[in-house]
């Protein structure tokens, strides 16, 4: 579909104006910075309302088919919206698992019935989705899933447990990887992929308290929980391929996401602003030569990551060691955020020892919380250590560890 450049520019103006007018005000409490941090009802309702508002304004799923509730427009329109949203540090889209992982997957390989049943409510945040991949005993080793799904008549009976299940406590559906056959040659065989309703009998959700003291993750237990057979996505036994496809969407290696972000990244600009306001030893932190040096390092790194993204789009500059730029995004960004968080705290000197809930904690304690929550990205979705293995092996061709 050809896109008119002028139309896009016109659209961008409209989008700017809408977000200028409709950006949510400070709710009076600390909002989560990512979809993995939604711990309280008031946070959840605030975020769900916000997603619905954006959808109803026509700014979500713009490139998804109209038939299922999308906008039916070319992708560049959604890209403009995404850019404007990211620029403004607006709250993220709470149903991001639906918007970016489950939704694209269903559109890509779901049945007509599945598309009709799920897509619109993903966009409106009516149905929240969660993901059941990790299990307690092998967090990094997804293909080793042991949750059993046993076919009985027109149902599968589920037994086992999933863990680190973000949003499970508010989700209506789960994308679920389960083992339908345990007598296979390799662990990659015998897995199946389901779109599972969370209200099935025998499903129990135990919230997991995070190291911050808050909630947001869950462990989900299945005890003889029956799933209708038509919840199956793809063929029985070929769940690993579906999971890999899902991971492609999750990691942004494949397009088709509805739009919106999953997190509000901390920008170095915010940390610079903090350094201007806090004092160390009686002088503004930003006047300290050592702190200035570190701020510049962070600014360079932040810019470098953005420029990596820009370079990835230029074939002649991305053809050598292919895959490197995309595969390192998660590693670089998550480790960067972790170090930036620790640095931001250090600017606050003695007052860094306050915590969320204390009136003296700078910015309601977001920096302390951010320091701890940063581990969700360096650990979740494959630890940084595993990322390095993957990059070393796939990009550089080094032997397996």
């Amino acid at each position, binding site marked *: 579909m050809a896109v008119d450049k002028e139309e896009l520019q016109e659209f961008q103006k409209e989008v700017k104006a809408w977000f200028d007018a409709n950006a949510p005000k400070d709710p009076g409490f600390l909002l989560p910075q990512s979809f993995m941090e939604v711990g309280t009802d008031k946070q959840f309702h605030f975020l769900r309302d916000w997603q619905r508002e954006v959808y109803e304004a026509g700014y979500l799923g713009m490139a998804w088919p109209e038939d299922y509730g999308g906008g039916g427009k070319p992708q560049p329109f959604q890209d403009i919206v995404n850019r404007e949203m990211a620029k403004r540090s607006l709250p993220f889209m709470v149903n991001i698992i639906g918007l970016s992982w489950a939704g694209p997957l269903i559109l890509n390989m779901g049945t007509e019935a599945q598309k009709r049943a799920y897509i619109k409510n993903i966009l409106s945040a009516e149905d929240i989705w969660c993901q059941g991949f990790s299990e307690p005993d092998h*967090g990094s080793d997804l293909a080793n899933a042991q949750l059993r799904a046993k076919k009985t008549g027109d149902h599968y009976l589920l037994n086992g447990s999933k863990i680190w299940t973000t949003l499970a406590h508010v989700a209506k559906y789960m994308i679920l990887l389960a083992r339908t056959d345990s007598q296979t040659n390799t662990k990659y065989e015998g897995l199946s992929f389901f779109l599972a309703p969370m209200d099935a009998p025998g499903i129990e959700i135990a919230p997991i308290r995070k190291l*911050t003291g808050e909630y947001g993750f869950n462990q989900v237990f299945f005890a003889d929980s029956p799933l209708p057979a038509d919840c199956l996505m793809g063929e029985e036994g070929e769940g690993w391929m579906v999971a890999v496809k899902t991971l492609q969407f999750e990691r942004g290696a494949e397009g088709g996401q509805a739009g919106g972000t999953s997190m509000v990244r901390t920008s170095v600009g915010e940390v610079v602003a903090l350094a201007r306001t806090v004092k160390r030893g009686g002088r503004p932190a930003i006047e300290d030569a050592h702190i200035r040096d570190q701020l510049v390092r962070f600014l360079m790194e932040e810019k470098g990551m953005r420029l990596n993204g820009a370079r990835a789009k230029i074939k002649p500059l991305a053809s050598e060691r292919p895959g490197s730029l995309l595969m390192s995004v998660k590693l670089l960004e998550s480790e960067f955020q972790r170090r930036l968080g620790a640095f931001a705290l250090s600017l*606050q000197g003695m007052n860094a*020892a306050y*915590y969320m809930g204390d009136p003296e904690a700078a910015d309601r304690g977001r920096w302390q919380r951010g320091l701890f929550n940063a581990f*969700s990205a*360096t650990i979740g979705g494959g630890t940084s250590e595993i990322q390095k293995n993957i990059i070393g092996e796939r990009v550089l061709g080094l032997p397996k*560890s």
Partner: protein
Amino acid sequence: MSLVGESSAWKIAFSEEQAQLLEVAAAFCREKSPIEKVRALMTEEKGFDKSLWDEIASLGWLGVAAPESYGGSGLSLAEAIVLAEPMGRRLFASPFFTTTLAAQMLIRAGTETQKKRWLPKICEGTIATLALHEPHGDWDLTNITARAEEREGGLRLVGEKRFVLDAAAAEMILVSVLHKDAPACVIVEKAALPKAALSRETVIDETKRSYRLKLDGITADCQSLLSAEKMTDALHHVHLAAILLLSAEMCGGLSGALDLTVEYLNTRRQFDRFIGSYQALKHPTVDMLTGWDMARSHLYYAASLFGKMAAADDAEAAVRMAKASASDAFAFGSDRCIQFHGGMGFTYECDAQLYRRRALWGEYMHGDSAWHRARLADILLK
């Protein structure tokens, strides 16, 4: 080749008494402060176990660094270090840190009357604390804005103090103020605190009990002022003593975090191997170990100098090095402890976060490593 420092002119003094105390304290903390107990106390308002506190007092630990004439053992702060290190390792919760520091302040700058009144009590278990920090957050303890104004033959305090540890349990608080435009220190007894003068702070280390103290409305008589002419020296001494105690607590904490990490690396399996066999985890764990070793060597060197000549540049440098070394090593170690626990590390239930929080606490009390290094540069690169 031998690289070991035959050339070392530095020696670490470590006495028989210290060795014995260290052994006793290590066993005591291990037995009396298992991690379940630490967690249970975290949820209680008081935050420590009074019966254990009494036990400590009866063991004489509150008087190790106090003169015998006031009921102490006549040893030095170097002996308090061998107590603080195992306490740190087991995250043992008690007002030991504040009470020991308050005693140091009294010993340095109390009048004879004040010393006679308070030191023997403290040695027997009376809890005391200090109110030295202010809203401006400067680590320099001589940067004081709170005031003691003379009114009707007495003193009226004005201002606010922060991070007053264990204040709710303390019988007395030593409050730093400006008096006649000079640094001073006032003894405020529990009974003299108006209702609502203290409010609990929410701090990053949940094993600690910290309070803000509103001074407005507090009065004291002039006899409650510590000796004015000794104040600058005493504040400096207390600053260094606090740093030394925190270094000990952090060395201990790092040791605990290392234990926890090694245990997990030796039990958790992924991809059919113990995760400790992966160099990506093993080598940084070795860095934790060498960081601990280095910090601990700095600590005991600083302790042995501190006893002898606390005012000298050498001792000050050694103490600041101990703090900078311990806080960097503990920050690294406790951070990796979380990371290497994977998903588990992200939970409240995993003890890794307890050490990380303790490390942050220790880092940001009484100067972080960059701040101490700047001070060290002034001493060492004159």
